[in-house]
C-alpha cells in the first residue's frame, strides 16, 4: 500500500512496466529511455514512419483534463508503433467520485486494453491507478496534478542531450511557476539523476514551492543571479489564473522580472539553449526574439516528444508483457 511511486513502475528485475515519474529511476534506465528515443527519431525521418512493434495492442488515451497537444503526441506515438488507439476525454465532473473512476477503468480493462495514457488533475492519480485499480495495464502518466509529467521531462532531457551533447555537468535553470508545475518536478529529478551540475529554479516566492531544496534544486529570485553561467534555460508556462489567486500582480510585472529577453539571456553562457514546454505566452514568459532566435530549441522539443513517447510506451508495454509471460510460466 505504501510503495514508493518509483517502485510501482518497475518489474522485479528493474524494468519499466508503468511510467509514472522520473523520481527514483536509475541513471541507466533514464539513459535507456533516451537511447531508445534516439532510435525512434531515426524511424521518424523515414518515408514509412510506422514500426510494427505494438501491432495488435490497444492503447487508451484517458484524459481527465483536456490537453489537445499532449493527447495528440501520444496518439501519434501510439499510431507510429502500430497500436490501436482510443481517445477518451472524461470531464472531471463525471468522475468526481473515486468509485466512478474505478468503474470506468475496470470497464476499459475488461475490453482488453493494454495501456492507459492518463492525464488527471489530481497528484498521484496515475500512481493510484497503477497500484490499486488496473496493475496489469501499463500506465503512462501524461501529467498528474502538480506531481509529475515524466514524458515531457524526458523529451526535455533528450533535447538537452542532443543540443548540448550531454546532461552531465550542465547548469540548468527552470524559470517561472514552479509551485504548480509537474513538468518542473519531473525535470528536477531527471536532471539530478542524469548528472546535471546544478539545477536552479527562478521565480517569485509565491511561485516557488516550500522546501524545493529537498528535491535538489537551488532557488533564485532574480534572473541575473539565476541565469549566470547557465547552459540550459527552461521557461515554464504561466497560467492566467495565477493572477486571480493573489500569486502575482500582473503579467506585465512578471515579464519585467522573469520574462526571457535577449538582455536577460545574455547572463547565461553564450551557447545556452532556450526551452519551453509550450504553448508559449509570447510577451509573458518569453519575448518572440528569443523564442524564435538562434538559441531556441523549442520546435525540436516538439518533434522529440513523439520519439520519447514511443520509447516509454514500447518499454512499458515490454515490461508489462514479459512480466505477464513470466507469471504464466
Amino acid at each position: 500500500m505504501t510503495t514508493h511511486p518509483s517502485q510501482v513502475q518497475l518489474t522485479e528485475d528493474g524494468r519499466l512496466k508503468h511510467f509514472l515519474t522520473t523520481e527514483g529511476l536509475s541513471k541507466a534506465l533514464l539513459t535507456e529511455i533516451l537511447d531508445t528515443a534516439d532510435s525512434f527519431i531515426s524511424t521518424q525521418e523515414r518515408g514509412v514512419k510506422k514500426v510494427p512493434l505494438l501491432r495488435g495492442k490497444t492503447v487508451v488515451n484517458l484524459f481527465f483534463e483536456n490537453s489537445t497537444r499532449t493527447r495528440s503526441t501520444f496518439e501519434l506515438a501510439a499510431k507510429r508503433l502500430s497500436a490501436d488507439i482510443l481517445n477518451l476525454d472524461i470531464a472531471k465532473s463525471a468522475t468526481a467520485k473515486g468509485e466512478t473512476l474505478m468503474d470506468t477503468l475496470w470497464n476499459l480493462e475488461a475490453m482488453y486494453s493494454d495501456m492507459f495514457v492518463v492525464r488527471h488533475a489530481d497528484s498521484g492519480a496515475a500512481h493510484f491507478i497503477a497500484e490499486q485499480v488496473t496493475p496489469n495495464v501499463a500506465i503512462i502518466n501524461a501529467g498528474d496534478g502538480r506531481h509529475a509529467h515524466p514524458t515531457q521531462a524526458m523529451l526535455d532531457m533528450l533535447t538537452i542531450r542532443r543540443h548540448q551533447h550531454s546532461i552531465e555537468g550542465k547548469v540548468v535553470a527552470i524559470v517561472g511557476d514552479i509551485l504548480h508545475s509537474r513538468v518542473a518536478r519531473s525535470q528536477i529529478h531527471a536532471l539530478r539523476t542524469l548528472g546535471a551540475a546544478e539545477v536552479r529554479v527562478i521565480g517569485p516566492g509565491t511561485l516557488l514551492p516550500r522546501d524545493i531544496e529537498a528535491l535538489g534544486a537551488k532557488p533564485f529570485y532574480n534572473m541575473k543571479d539565476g541565469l549566470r553561467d547557465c547552459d540550459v534555460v527552461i521557461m515554464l508556462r504561466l497560467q492566467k489564473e495565477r493572477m486571480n489567486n493573489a500569486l502575482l500582480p500582473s503579467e506585465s510585472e512578471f515579464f519585467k522580472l522573469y520574462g526571457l529577453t535577449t538582455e536577460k539571456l545574455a547572463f547565461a553562457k553564450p551557447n545556452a539553449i532556450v526551452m519551453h514546454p509550450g504553448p508559449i505566452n509570447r510577451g509573458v514568459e518569453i519575448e518572440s526574439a528569443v523564442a524564435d532566435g538562434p538559441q531556441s530549441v523549442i520546435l525540436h522539443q516538439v518533434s522529440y516528444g513523439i520519439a520519447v513517447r514511443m520509447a516509454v510506451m514500447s518499454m512499458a508495454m515490454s515490461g508489462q508483457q514479459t512480466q505477464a509471460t513470466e507469471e504464466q510460466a
Partner: protein
Amino acid sequence: MTLPNIEQICQQLAHDLADYLQQQNIHNPLLVGIRTGGVWVAERLQSQLQLSDDATGVLDISFYRDDFTQHGLHPQVKGSELPESIEDRHIILVDDVIMSGRTIRAAMHELFDFGRPASITLVCLLDIGRRELPIQPDVCGTRLDLADGQLVKLGGPNPLTLTIA
C-alpha cells in the same frame, strides 16, 4: 566438436559472394549488416570486396521482432543506419547466424519500410538449421550441426570468435 576458423570462413564467404554477385550481374550493391554480429561480418566482407563506406548500412531489427510479447524490447536499441534511399538498390543482407529465419523476416520487413529495393541477397556466416520459416541464405559460410539445446554465439569485432553454449 572442433569449431571452424572464423577468419577463414569469412574469406571464403567473401569469395563466394563475389562469385554470386558476378553471376547475378549485381553491381554497386548495398551491404547491410544486422546488429550486432551481422555488422561485424559485413565489415569483413566490405574490406575484402573493397566496397566503399557509403555502400554499407546497419539494421537494428528491435522494433520489428515478432517475439516482443514474450521477450520484450531489447534493452539496448541502437537504431538502424541506412543511406537516404534504398529505392532500387541491390541489398546484400548480412547476418552472423541463421536459425529460425525470424530475424531475416523482421529485417526484410524493416527494409521495406525504408523503400523498395531492387533485390535482396541473403548472406550468412553460419547456418545451424532448425528453420521455422521458408527463408534460405543465398550464400553461406558453413553449416554447423549442433546438439539439441546448443546455441552458437559470435563474439567480436576483433577478433571474431565462436562459442557454443
